């Protein structure tokens, strides 16, 4: 009888690794943190009680409690006692430099590259499809999101940049792709925009994004892809410097 080849990959062993409760608390924490940052759980929303949360997620009450403690430490949840009390979602200030800094410091170099890779590949792919599928109205909309090189307010840059990429994702005509980019933006986009604090990076961003919109207008998929790939690549290198300087 032929034996079925079962490569003992790391992915396989990870699937069958025992689920310790300590690992579970981190997973509960990460899942809720991501939902809060991406806005799926709204600011001020009441979370289920510890026992309810535990039974919904299929974990021990102590595990749910541990996750909530960690979320409180991250400032993503506030707990009040007494009547009407409970745990409430506290959405972080999107551009809060402190929050971004502490998220970045908590990341390893490998995680930074890992997240940067998926962000870059997906956004470059979106740009390529957007170039194939854009119409003149779409291009007019994108142009309005380009920021003048002289604009001094970094908040304006961050916001316009994020909306530009969301708009490019929407031009793929795929709702699932757009939702995925919304998730990536909430998860990693804010970090990748930290280098916008540098004026020379803003100047380069301005030129590359103008070139991106031109390429989309001309249905030049290859150039559109390259613009995003180069831009995300450059942002990632600069972010790696910021990361290194914080450690």
């Amino acid at each position, binding site marked *: 009888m032929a034996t079925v080849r079962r490569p003992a990959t790391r992915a396989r062993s990870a699937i069958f690794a025992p689920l310790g409760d300590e690992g579970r608390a981190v997973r509960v924490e990460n899942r809720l943190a991501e939902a809060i940052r*991406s*806005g799926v759980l709204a*600011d001020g929303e009441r979370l289920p009680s510890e026992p309810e949360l535990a039974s919904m997620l299929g974990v021990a009450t102590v595990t749910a409690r541990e996750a909530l403690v960690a979320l409180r430490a991250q400032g993503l949840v506030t707990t009040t006692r007494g009547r009407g009390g409970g745990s409430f979602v506290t*959405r972080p200030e*999107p*551009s809060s430099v402190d929050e971004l800094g502490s998220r970045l410091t908590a990341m390893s170099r490998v995680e930074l590259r890992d997240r940067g890779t998926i962000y870059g590949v997906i956004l470059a792919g979106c740009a390529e499809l957007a170039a194939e*599928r854009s*119409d*003149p*109205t779409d291009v007019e*909309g994108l142009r*309005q*999101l380009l920021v003048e090189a002289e604009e001094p307010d970094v*908040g304006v840059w*961050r*916001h316009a940049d*994020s*909306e530009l990429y*969301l708009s490019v*994702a*929407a*031009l*793929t*005509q*795929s*709702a699932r*792709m*757009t*939702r995925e980019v*919304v998730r990536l*933006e*909430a998860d990693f*986009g*804010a970090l990748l925009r930290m280098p916008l604090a540098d004026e020379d990076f803003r100047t380069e961003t301005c030129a590359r994004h103008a070139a991106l919109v031109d390429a989309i207008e001309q249905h030049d998929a290859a150039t559109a892809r390259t613009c995003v790939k180069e831009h995300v690549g450059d942002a990632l290198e600069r972010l790696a410097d910021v990361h290194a300087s914080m450690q």
Partner: protein
Amino acid sequence: MTVQTAELAACVERVETHFHHILDQLESMRAPLVGLFDRGPVDADTARSSIEPLVRTFLATSDIVGAGYVAARGALDDQPLYLAWWQGDDQHLLAEPDAPATGAPLDYTRHPWFRTPERTGEPHVTGPYVDFVCTDEYVMTSTTPVFSHGRMVGVVGADTLVETLEKLLLPTFRAVGATLVNDLGRTVMSADPHQATGSLIDLEECSQVVSCARLPLSVVRR
């Protein structure tokens, strides 16, 4: 040619039935808002409650996924930007326009479903497009401008999922091998399985093009 074009008439009629019903409902939502704004300053709560019953009935009785009133910048005296917009099976209310990723206020006034009726003063159907302001779905948005004292104070609108249109219309379109496109040549849905929704076609290359009345939509055949 005339005979062949007549074959597309059934498709045109189905499209018009769907969207004209929506535009009629938008007209009935527009009227109470015009009355309000004509009388003086309006706040978000007043605007919302003036149309809420109409919108809820509209949602419950039509093939739409969301509907409501979207304020022009500065039209309401207590909120710079505001959506009295209900959507989904639970008809939940959207109010503050937050950008999906950053949570910062989102300026929806640059989107074509707002900009086009603002520019033309006429009802418009935008899409198909991925809407990341309201539904996060692939939709067509019908909007009618609301004017008071010569100024546009917002739009009333309704979203139809492209998926809903496909369910409603595709059998009729398949029977005659037709494709529904918008005025920019973007495919809404097609009898041809290789003509993907969202892809662009050159209207010049179509042998037959029949426009739908009062809508930026055409039924075409290659």
